[in-house]
């Protein structure tokens, strides 16, 4: 777990924290929550997804970003 924490940069930590505090969000909503532009969160978000900390759930109007169990543990630690 500590290894994961060391690999997460400030932007990624903010994204995880925003999902933890306010719940699942659409990608644009997540950008707004962290006061960033959509382009700025694209790369860090992809890395979080690759690390298995965040996953996308499809729904009628688009897709939603949700913290995985591992992602929740990282935020709590």
């Amino acid at each position: 777990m500590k290894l994961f924490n060391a690999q997460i940069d400030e932007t990624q930590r903010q994204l995880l924290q925003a999902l933890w505090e306010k719940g699942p969000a659409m990608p644009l909503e997540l950008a707004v929550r962290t006061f960033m532009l959509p382009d700025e969160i694209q790369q860090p978000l992809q890395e979080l997804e690759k690390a298995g900390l965040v996953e996308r759930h499809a729904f009628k109007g688009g897709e939603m970003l949700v913290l995985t169990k591992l992602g929740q543990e990282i935020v709590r630690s």
Partner: protein
Amino acid sequence: MTTLLTWLAGHHVGLYLATALVAALWAVSEIVSTFAAQPVRALRTSGALLLVGLNAAFACLVLGAALATGLAPSLWTAVGVGLAWQMLIRTRINFIQPLPGEGSSEAVGFRLDEMYTRLQAFCRRQIDRTLVSERVRLIEQALTMLDLEELARRAHLVLAALLATGPADPRNYVQKILNSEMDEESKELLLVLTILDHGSPALLRDMIREAERGKKDAKEKTS
């Protein structure tokens, strides 16, 4: 009538109702704390209704099992089961009686626990989806009714009071959006989301209502 009352008393219906009520209240409190940003809207969804119902039903099932083991049928038992039934099906104590012809009590308890966890996750996903769909509808309405200038003004007001908690300063965010190379529609969308997320859905609804009134008044004046 007397027969019905006797039957109800014989089957401890009052106790089951008490357990169901306590378990339902417990579920409501869980929903309210999980969806703290929109508790009332979350409670109005079908997923929430299902979760409350499930809690009540599972708690009654556990009460039935508890009474079958010979536990005294009292109000305290009913309230206790209503509060602690989730813990009871998760413990591996010999509490839940095996179904006839089935394996051990542990297996039954574990299956109940697993089934409830899955159903609970399903209900939460349903609530999430309903809330997100509602947000999408509100965003679409706002985009049709409000212009960039008004959205920027309101978003700026909403963010003015926020303190920076990360590297990005909230007070510069509106300017950052306006200065970006995105098209006007994308800028409007981000501003709507800013008002929605850092303000509230109620604020955005008020803005839409004001804009609708304004348009209606303008129409009446011209006609």
